[in-house]
C-alpha cells in the first residue's frame, strides 16, 4: 500500500454557505384527485412528507336542495334526499318519509316498517362495504374491493326489485312502501343473507389481522371522544372512539325496538377502529335483516292515509274518490298543517336529521338537512395534522365523507 497523503478537510465558513430557507410546500389535494373519493379540495401545508395544516374547500357539488325543497310538494322532496348520501339512498328516502309521517301523525303498518328496516339495513351494508373496501384499496389491497363489489351489486338488485331503481332509489312513499315485497325480492334477500357472510369473512381475513393493513391504520387519524363530540361526530366514527350513541337504539323508529342487535364500539377512534366498527356493523345489520325477513308480519304495506298515499291504479280508474285523491296528490294540492319537527335516523355516516318548518302550505317553509358528513368533516385537518400524506388519505377514506351529503 502506497502512502496516501491525506489532504486537510476544508470546511467552508458559515458565511460562505447559501442561506438555508425553511419553506413549507403547499399541496393541492383535490378537487378531482381519485384518492379523495369525491369532489372536495384540501389545501395542505406540507413539511416534507408531514402535514402541518390543512384547509378544506367544499361545495363543488352544492345543488341547493334546501332552497329547491321550499318550492316542492312534500312527496317530491324524496328525490332530493337520495342524492345526498348516494351510497345509502334508501336510508335518506325512508328517513324523510318517516319525518313526514311523524309530522302528519300517520300510522305505518308493521309490515311496511319491517320492509323499511330490511331496506335500510341493506343500505347500511352497501354503504359500509364501499367504505371498508375502498380503505383496503387505499392501503394497496385492491382485490377485496372488486370482490365485495359483487355483493353490493346484489344489494342493488334487491333495490331494483323493491323500487325499480338502483342508485337514486326514491324508495317508499309517505305512509308505507310503493309496492309489497315480491316473491323474487324475498328470495333475493334470503339468498343475500346466505351468500354474504362468507364474502365478508374473506374480506375480514384479508384485512383484519393483516400486518401491513394494521401498520397502516392503527394510531392513524385518531380522535378522542371529547374532541369527536365537540366536532359533532355521530355514527360509526363516533362509536369508533368508544361512545355507543346510535339513533336506532336511543330513539327507535320504524320498529327497531323489535330487533336484537349490538352496537359495536372502538377504543381509540383511529382508522383501524373505524374500519372494525363498520365491519361489525355489517354483521349486526345482517342479523337485523335476517330477523326482519323471518318475522315479516302479514298485512297491508301502506297506511290508511288516502290524502297522502297514492291510491292503487285500478281504483283511480274506477272510483271517484280515488281519482280525486290521485289528482290532488300528484298536483301537490295537499296542504300540511303548520308546525315544526325534527326527526333523525341513523344514516350510513351518523345522525341524519330533518328539521322541517311548515307554514301550512303545500311545500315546507324551511327544510334543513342535518348532514353528518358535513358536520364531522371539519375535524379532518386536526385528525391528519402531523401525519404523512399517505396516512391522511386513509383517514379521509375511513371517515367515509360522501360528497353529495357534504354539499347537499
Amino acid at each position: 500500500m502506497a502512502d496516501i497523503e491525506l489532504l486537510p478537510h476544508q470546511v467552508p465558513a458559515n458565511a460562505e454557505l447559501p442561506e438555508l430557507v425553511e419553506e413549507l410546500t403547499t399541496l393541492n389535494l383535490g378537487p378531482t384527485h381519485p384518492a379523495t373519493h369525491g369532489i372536495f379540495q384540501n389545501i395542505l401545508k406540507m413539511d416534507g412528507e408531514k402535514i402541518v395544516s390543512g384547509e378544506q374547500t367544499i361545495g363543488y357539488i352544492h345543488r341547493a336542495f334546501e332552497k329547491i325543497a321550499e318550492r316542492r310538494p312534500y312527496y317530491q322532496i324524496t328525490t332530493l334526499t337520495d342524492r345526498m348520501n348516494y351510497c345509502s339512498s334508501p336510508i335518506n328516502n325512508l328517513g324523510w318519509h318517516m319525518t313526514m309521517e311523524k309530522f302528519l301523525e300517520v300510522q305505518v303498518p308493521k309490515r311496511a316498517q319491517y320492509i323499511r328496516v330490511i331496506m335500510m339495513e341493506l343500505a347500511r351494508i352497501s354503504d359500509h362495504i364501499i367504505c371498508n373496501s375502498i380503505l383496503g384499496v387505499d392501503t394497496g389491497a385492491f382485490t377485496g374491493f372488486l370482490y365485495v363489489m359483487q355483493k353490493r351489486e346484489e344489494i342493488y338488485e334487491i333495490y331494483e326489485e323493491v323500487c325499480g331503481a338502483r342508485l337514486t332509489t326514491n324508495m317508499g312513499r309517505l305512509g308505507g312502501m310503493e309496492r309489497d315485497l315480491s316473491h323474487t325480492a324475498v328470495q333475493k334477500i334470503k339468498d343475500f343473507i346466505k351468500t354474504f357472510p362468507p364474502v365478508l369473512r374473506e374480506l375480514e381475513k384479508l384485512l383484519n389481522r393483516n400486518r401491513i393493513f394494521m401498520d397502516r391504520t392503527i394510531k392513524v387519524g385518531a380522535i378522542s371522544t371529547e374532541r369527536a363530540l365537540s366536532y359533532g361526530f355521530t355514527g360509526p366514527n363516533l362509536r369508533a372512539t368508544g361512545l355507543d350513541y346510535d339513533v336506532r337504539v336511543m330513539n327507535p323508529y320504524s320498529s327497531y325496538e323489535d330487533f336484537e342487535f349490538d352496537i359495536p364500539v372502538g377504543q381509540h377512534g383511529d382508522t383501524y377502529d373505524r374500519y372494525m366498527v363498520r365491519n361489525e356493523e355489517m354483521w349486526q345489520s345482517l342479523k337485523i335483516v335476517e330477523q326482519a325477513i323471518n318475522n315479516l308480519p302479514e298485512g297491508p304495506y301502506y297506511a290508511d292515509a288516502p290524502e297522502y298515499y297514492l291510491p292503487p291504479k285500478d281504483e283511480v280508474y274506477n272510483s271517484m274518490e280515488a281519482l280525486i285523491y290521485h289528482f290532488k296528490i300528484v298536483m301537490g294540492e295537499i296542504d300540511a298543517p303548520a308546525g315544526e319537527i325534527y326527526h333523525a335516523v341513523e344514516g350510513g355516516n351518523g345522525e341524519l336529521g330533518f328539521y322541517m318548518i311548515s307554514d301550512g302550505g303545500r311545500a315546507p317553509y324551511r327544510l334543513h338537512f342535518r348532514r353528518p358528513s358535513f358536520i364531522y368533516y371539519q375535524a379532518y385537518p386536526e385528525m391528519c395534522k402531523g401525519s404523512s400524506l399517505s396516512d391522511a388519505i386513509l383517514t379521509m377514506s375511513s371517515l367515509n365523507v360522501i360528497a353529495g351529503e357534504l354539499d347537499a
Partner: protein
Amino acid sequence: MLSNQEVAEELLGKFGSQVFDFEEPYGLLTLSTTREEILTVLEFIKEHNHFQISFLTDLTGVQYPDKTGQEFMVVYHLHSFVHNFRIRIKVSIPEADIHIPTVTGLWESANWMERETYDFYGILFDGHPNLKRILNIEEMDYFPMRKEYPLEDATREDKIDALFGR
C-alpha cells in the same frame, strides 16, 4: 330521564323572563331567548351537572320576512346523550342589526354550521374565527336562501298559482 317540565322550570328559575315562548311540538321542548342571553343559556345547559345537554346536533337559520324586527332566526338543536333528551332553542334577530354571538367557543362543530348559515342568510356570527362562505362561491354578493329570491323566474307567466286554483 329528564322531563321537559324539569328543564323548563330550571331555565325559568335561572333566566326568568329572558327565556320565553315555551312549546312542545312533537314532544320536543322548544323555547326562545334573546341574543344577549343565548351564550349564557347554552353554556348553562351544557355545563349543567344534571342535564348534560352537551351535544350540538344542529344549528341553522330561518327567515321570516314579515315579522318586523325579528326577520331572522337562528335555531339550535341540542341533545343530551346521558338522558336522551333533546331541546330546541331559538333566537330572533332583526334584519337591521343582523348579529349574533358565535358558539364556536363551546363546540367546534358550530364552525361550519355557522358558516353555512352565514352563507345562505347573511347572519353575522360575532367572534367567529373564519366567517366566510362555505358552499357557495366567494364572489357571490347575495344570500340565496332569503325569501326575496324566489326559486323560479318571477317574470314567467305560465306558472301563476291562480291558474291552478291556489
